[in-house]
């Protein structure tokens, strides 16, 4: 094998593809997209923290004042601590400016007047508490939009709390005493891991694992397809006949794989770089979207190294297969059918992704992640959630590396014959026969 040739071919693949707009669009759009979906909602919600001017009309005469006091008090206190059960998402999102109004003699006119004020935007909503509230009748909520879930949730919590207090009082129980005695118990999740570290392993880790998984998944499929299309183009334009007089098919295949692999790594490093920035402590407003107690873990060096290594192995395992498929057929349509078979190996990891995250050391997770076709996709999941024992990792690498070497050998044989073969679509039996040509 002439290294110069491999380098020349690889350089061409890398530069030609890096020059395309499609590459840069794809490379930049994903980080933008991820940043957008993680940061934007939080930003938007913090903007919608606008005052909710609400008029409360209480027919019972027992709740209005307390409710208004409680709603307005929510400005300052952290409601989650107060009730212990309020969804954190809703917390602090809504600031009420409530005011009580006594029910007028003409209820109808009062309601009409309130509606008018809502439409005038002098108030945002009005709440009507009828005496039936103590018999579980709902409280009316009138607003221009009733899809503001956070507002309604906060309001409902406040209402429930006041009504509950009133019920206790009616039953002769001191509400303050009840409050005191009925505090919830919190759960502090701590993972027991072999490495002894109790810090790792959380919802955040699972989230990171999923993100990494899909980055790998997209990269492997996308760059594998690129290899296949590149081979088909060479074959279709007969460039191959010129190139093959100076470069052996094996050199050509290796150059192509390495060039495209490097480009994939370039893209990956841009993506991971973005992730490092986005997950860096303090940067993300999206923290608001994580469940209580969770923080976004930043990428550790161990994870990065494993991730890159597994990308390279995964890429080589699949891309060689795609190269062989591209070489075997004459056009994209024919090749796509065969490429579907390769997809099976990528789809199985997707199906078992959640069980593996949930229990990364189960027998199924261990066994599947040691099968070379699945290792590149499943191992990063396990590493992100809970570092597997070193021997398992070593075994996985050994198996995958041997598998990749086998694949390169096997596919290069198909490639060598297929690349110069024209005419009718070959059958799988024929392709199999090619591997036995000298």
């Amino acid at each position: 094998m002439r290294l110069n040739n491999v380098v020349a071919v690889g350089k061409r693949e890398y530069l030609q593809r890096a020059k395309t707009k499609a590459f840069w669009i794809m490379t930049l759009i994903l980080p933008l997209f991820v940043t957008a979906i993680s940061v934007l909602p939080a930003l938007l919600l913090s903007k919608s923290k606008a005052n909710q001017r609400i008029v409360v009309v209480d027919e019972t005469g027992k709740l209005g004042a307390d409710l208004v006091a409680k709603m307005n008090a929510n400005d300052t206190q952290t409601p989650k601590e107060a009730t212990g059960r309020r969804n954190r998402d809703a917390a602090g999102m809504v600031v009420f400016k409530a005011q009580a109004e006594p029910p007028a003699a003409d209820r109808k006119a009062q309601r009409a007047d309130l509606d008018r004020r809502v439409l005038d935007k002098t108030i945002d909503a009005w709440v009507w508490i009828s005496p039936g509230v103590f018999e579980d009748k709902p409280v009316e909520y009138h607003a221009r939009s009733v899809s503001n879930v956070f507002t309604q949730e906060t309001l409902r919590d406040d209402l429930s709390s006041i009504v509950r207090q009133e019920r206790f009082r009616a039953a002769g129980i001191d509400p303050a005493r009840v409050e005191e005695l009925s505090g919830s118990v919190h759960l502090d999740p701590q993972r027991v891991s072999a490495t002894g570290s109790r810090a790792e392993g959380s919802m955040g880790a699972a989230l990171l694992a999923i993100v990494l998984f899909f980055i790998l998944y997209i990269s492997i499929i996308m760059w594998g397809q690129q290899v296949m299309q590149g081979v088909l183009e060479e074959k279709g334009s007969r460039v191959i006949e010129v190139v093959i007089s100076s470069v052996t098919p094996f050199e050509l295949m290796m150059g192509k794989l390495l060039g495209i692999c490097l480009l994939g790594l370039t893209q990956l490093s841009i993506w991971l770089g973005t992730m490092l920035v986005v997950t860096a402590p303090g940067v993300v407003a999206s923290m608001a979207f994580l469940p209580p107690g969770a923080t976004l873990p930043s990428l550790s060096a161990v994870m990065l190294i494993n991730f890159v290594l597994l990308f390279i192995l995964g890429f080589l395992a699949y891309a060689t297969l795609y190269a062989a498929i591209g070489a075997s057929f004459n056009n994209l349509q024919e090749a796509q059918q065969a490429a579907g078979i390769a997809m099976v190996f990528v789809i199985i990891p997707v199906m078992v992704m959640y069980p593996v995250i949930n229990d990364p050391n189960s027998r199924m997770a261990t066994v599947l992640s040691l099968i070379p076709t699945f290792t590149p996709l499943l191992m990063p999941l396990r590493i992100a959630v809970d570092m597997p024992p070193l021997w398992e990792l070593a075994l996985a690498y050994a198996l995958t590396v041997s598998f990749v070497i086998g694949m390169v050998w096997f596919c290069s044989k198909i490639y060598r014959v297929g690349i110069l073969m024209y005419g009718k679509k070959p059958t799988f039996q024929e392709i199999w026969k090619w591997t036995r040509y000298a």
Partner: protein
Amino acid sequence: MTPILELRNVRKAYGDFVAVDGVSMSVPAGSIFGLLGPNGAGKTSTIRMIMNITAPDSGEVLVFGHPRTPEDLRRIGYLPEERGLYRKMTVMDQLLFLAEIRGLKGSRIRPEIERWLERVDLAKWSKSKIEELSKGMQQKVQLIGTVLHQPDLLILDEPFSGLDPINQELFRELLQEYRAQGKSVVLSTHGMELAERMCDHICLISRGRAVLDGELRDIKRRVGGNAYRLVAEGDLERLKTMPEVEQATVQDGVVKLLLRPEAAGSAVLRRMVEFLEIHEFRSEEPELEQIFMKAVRDAA
């Protein structure tokens, strides 16, 4: 002198179809060798075996005096029949790549490429993508890519397709310069007229068989001792029925006659006077076209 390229009884079949049926030919060093024949005669199949793109079913290919090795291929410049270029690459990138895979250093070969582009009038296209070029321009880029590494032997499959007469002439000049440097050229074409102007050796292929092989001058002397030019009025069609006439093609009142080897010109002339008003009748070199048609008929 050992031939630079030699085929010995090479045969290639695709299923039941025999594309190349025992072709032997020998290309002397320093020649422009024409592989001639109509479409589908087996020219491209033969060339693909020379380039080791397909393997012959039987027979031998020798280059530079020995059975071909992969190393030898690097001393051959090959131009395939269909466009063998990356469509999305620029002209310069394309040529640099082709130079690099032949072991040349990009930085050193760049001025050379620029000289070539200047020469074939493509200098201002060097940053254009191949797909933006016309077929003729692509063909010129391809030719540069073929000769950049100064191979000892050029194998060109239908190099003139898509070229206008001016560029055909340019190609002819370039190839002759190339030969003047002591290198050899094998080209295939179905255009007999072009081949006649361009080649000094030829091999005629028809239906997978080599029907004629040798130096063009020799062949003309050997096969075409009996060619005449005739300008006459009258029933020219009747010429074709005369037993002594091998071939008669009429064009613009001029008849190209090819007589059977045993026939004598004077005797034929005497017979023709009976039904034609003859203005001119003289012996001349036969055209390759005539030779080819005769050879194909003889072989059948």
